[in-house]
């Protein structure tokens, strides 16, 4: 199995962090993994995206021409990437700021108002972790435990309170998606 996911949004929304945290947790689970960020001139102008491939076999291309999952944190990302998603794939939408919906019928769509939820939690910056909660629930690429442990390792020695709020944020996103 190889699962490919594209994370995309504005710079500052923690889009690359979403990818790196997924890649780290997949590595810690023992999977093969590649993480490929958009770089250079294409990052200027405020957009950011990255691609994570996770597999139980060697990963050939780190590029996702047909990602299984797409996480869009802003509207331009939806327009850019929605048609790449493989048939039967899933699109996660930051519905707090994206009103549009995919114009395809062959993909599943999950709307998560992660920016509003982050505000409710009192920290605007955890919208990405909330979205990761929703994504992990649906994709099941790694277990919540491994994800949260890996996230803590990446955040390093930063404040304990940060780990706490991340846990809460992740749980909020995880619980938001119904089985």
């Amino acid at each position, binding site marked *: 199995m190889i699962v490919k996911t594209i994370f995309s949004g504005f710079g500052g929304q923690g889009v690359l962090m979403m990818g*790196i945290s997924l*890649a*780290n947790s997949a*590595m810690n689970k023992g999977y*093969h*993994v*590649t*993480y*490929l*960020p958009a*770089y*250079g*001139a294409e990052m200027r102008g405020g957009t950011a995206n990255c691609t994570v491939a996770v597999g139980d076999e*060697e990963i*050939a*291309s*780190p*590029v996702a*021409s047909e990602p299984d999952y797409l996480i869009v944190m802003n509207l331009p990302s939806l327009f850019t990437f929605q048609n790449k998603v493989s048939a039967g794939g899933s699109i996660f939408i930051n519905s707090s700021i994206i009103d549009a919906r995919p114009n395809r019928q062959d993909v599943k769509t999950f709307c998560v108002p992660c920016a509003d939820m982050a505000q409710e939690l009192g920290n605007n910056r955890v919208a990405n972790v909330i979205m990761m909660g929703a994504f992990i629930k649906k994709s099941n690429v790694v277990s919540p435990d491994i994800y949260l442990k890996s996230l803590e390792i990446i955040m390093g020695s930063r404040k304990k309170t940060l780990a706490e709020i991340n846990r809460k944020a992740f749980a909020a996103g995880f619980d938001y998606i119904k089985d």
Partner: protein
Amino acid sequence: MNKVLMSGNNVIAEAGIRAGCRFYAGYPITPQNELTEYMAEHMRNAEGGVFIQSESEVAAINMIAGSSATGVRVMTSSSSPGISLKQEGISSMAACELPGIIVNIMRGGPGLGNIRPAQGDYFQATRGGGHGDYRTIVIAPATCQELADLTMDAFDLADKYRTPVMILADGMMGQMMEPVIFKKPKPRQYPEKFMLRGAGTGKSKFIRGLLLDPIDSEEHNWKLARKYEVITKNEILHEEHRVDDADLVIVAYGTAARIAKGAIKRLRDHGMKVGLFRPITLWPFPELKLRALSAKIKNYLVFEMSTGQMLEDVRLALQGYANIEFHGRPGGAVPTPAELANVVAKIYDKKD
């Protein structure tokens, strides 16, 4: 040592420092900036480590030449246009027999081109690149793990043969993160007699490439040529992937080889027996290994992110004993495994 998730650029830098590299000079250019930044951050914590952000790639290569002469392990890195600038110094290091590592994280060309991954610098890398009769060892890893292992090995090769060694990767390899385990580097073996550190009370030395007498110069050229022959005999690396039962073999290196592996998986799922021959050292090219393979496999597809450069080495290796097709995507275009699989499938149907 645990597995760590690192980008190719950072892996090369970390492997270099672990291998004892204590001098780095470079000039920012995308897509290899993270390597320069990593060196800036970490060289200062390495004992005796020196980092200089040079005023140009020309200065950088000459800085590492000077530093190498003092007996320090050295590295510089750049991307295609910057590597063109370094050629003067690479030629000079080859002439003066100074070890050093030059990293080329290739991007689209010619000219300024773009910053996407490409493989258009194959000729420049494998034919010497600068002026004069010389070669550089060229190593083309295809995974971050190989970047770690082969960067360390590159330092040993550079010392062993007192010659510049190039790590040839591309923007994809530089930017991509993969899990990596760093091995323990071998202890360095580099005799003090080659180091220029002041004459002390002894005889003074000089290091030079200038040999005005053509007979001296000819002898020096032959001496280098003999060294290159030894390298060609002893230092070839390559990988064969699913060739045992193959009817057709893709020849590709670096990122292109990764894509080829993806294509092979798809093709095999459809019953097509396709394998991969991946040169890891591009110079010396695994010529005899490929020729040996042609005894039983007669169909080859060279796949490069260029208009066809390694293609010439494959032709030289196969010497007309096999059919050779080519698929290329130059200028920074990165094809998908699916696209390559389609190309291969068409050729596969027509093959003998």
